[in-house]
């Protein structure tokens, strides 16, 4: 009896160590190597440009459209609540603060993880499965410098820009619904927003958040791709894990960053 319990505990420990601790250590080492080998992705910047195109430019449509709709929904919902307290002019404050501080970086990050992160993982995983990475090594081309680092930097550069675009589109959507559709006074919509939103406190912190999310998402994406078992099943599992892990990472990091930034801890 006690032998089986010990066996169970041992199995649990082995599973945690093998699938979490070991992988986390490998992921950290992988990030370090990626950073160390990222010289070529800046010297031959067209490699990174290509990845910015795939991660950033191709995500533009989904980011812009969802930003617009999120802003419009915020406008409708915010107006509905604010009008009860007779302060519907504060709609601009509500829309802009919630977008710039939270929704912009977080929702753009989630969309980025599922749109670009999964693509990065699938691409690298498939390269590994079809032994393109090994072929590169055979030709003395470092696959980390040639394949991983440009994708990493492409994602890191794209993410803050996408989050800023999301927030800007959202503010525009809130303006469309609040001012154009419902008829909140345009002057007080903008002026209350401008007096409530602070550049350093709100805008800059939002940009920092989105940069952190960008690093987290692309790190997870390139690592999962590189670590994927070289089978069709393995690649599909790695793609799923990328989306799940980076979504969780974004939400957890968001809590930590918000606690650090806005509570003055």
């Amino acid at each position: 009896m006690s032998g089986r319990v010990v066996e169970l505990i041992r199995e649990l420990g082995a599973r945690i160590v093998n699938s979490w601790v070991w992988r986390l250590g490998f992921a950290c080492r992988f990030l370090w190597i990626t950073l160390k080998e990222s010289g070529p992705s800046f010297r031959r910047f067209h490699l990174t440009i290509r990845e910015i195109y795939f991660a950033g430019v191709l995500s533009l449509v989904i980011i812009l459209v969802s930003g617009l709709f999120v802003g419009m929904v915020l406008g409708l919902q915010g107006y509905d609540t604010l009008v009860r307290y007779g302060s519907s002019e504060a709609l601009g404050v509500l829309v802009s603060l919630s977008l710039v501080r939270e929704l912009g970086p977080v929702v753009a990050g989630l969309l980025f993880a599922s749109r670009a992160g999964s693509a990065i993982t699938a691409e690298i995983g498939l390269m590994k499965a079809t032994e393109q990475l090994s072929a590169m090594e055979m030709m003395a081309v470092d696959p980390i410098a040639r394949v991983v680092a440009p994708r990493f930097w492409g994602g890191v550069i794209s993410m803050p820009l996408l989050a800023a675009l999301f927030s800007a589109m959202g503010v525009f959507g809130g303006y469309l619904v609040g001012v154009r559709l419902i008829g909140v006074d345009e002057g007080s919509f903008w002026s209350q927003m401008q007096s409530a939103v602070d550049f350093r406190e709100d805008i800059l912190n939002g940009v920092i958040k989105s940069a952190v999310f960008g690093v987290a998402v692309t790190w997870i994406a390139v690592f999962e791709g590189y670590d994927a078992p070289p089978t069709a099943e393995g690649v599909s599992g790695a793609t799923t894990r990328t989306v799940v892990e980076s979504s969780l990472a974004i939400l957890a990091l968001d809590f930590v960053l918000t606690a650090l930034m806005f509570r003055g801890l």
Partner: protein
Amino acid sequence: MMTRKELDLWVGLFAVLGIGAMLFLSLKVANLLSSFSSADVYPIKAKFENIGGLKVRAAVKSAGVVVGRVGEIRFDNESFEAVVALNIDSRFQFPKDSSAKILTSGLLGEQYVGITAGGDSVNLKAGDTLKLTQSAVVLENLIGQFLYNKAAEGDGKK
């Protein structure tokens, strides 16, 4: 497959859009440029018995127009009063005997400092202190005063 030139064009466009969005957020949403920077303001001080819920960066208004921002709030341990530093835009000059009040915009709105111009021929300089101030209205004090007056009225009738 796209040529490198096309790729550059799209990525450049993307970067321009993204930086444009950041500029829009900082200039139009956060109003970075027209918030008074330290270069063109002069500081004056005002002592209040009670500042209520006044916060740093609250507006300083005169005749309803924003003329500056609250720079710093601290407690003076000698006179037991709050010392509020007001950064006034140097485009606006006020007479030396102007007075400051802490007012509330609307019933539940945020508090701001209202400056009422006096009649002196000499204007306030940087570092001057406003002599005439009126504290924030604290609701508890107001209710206390009201109850006290009611009680006093009742005593008088007897």
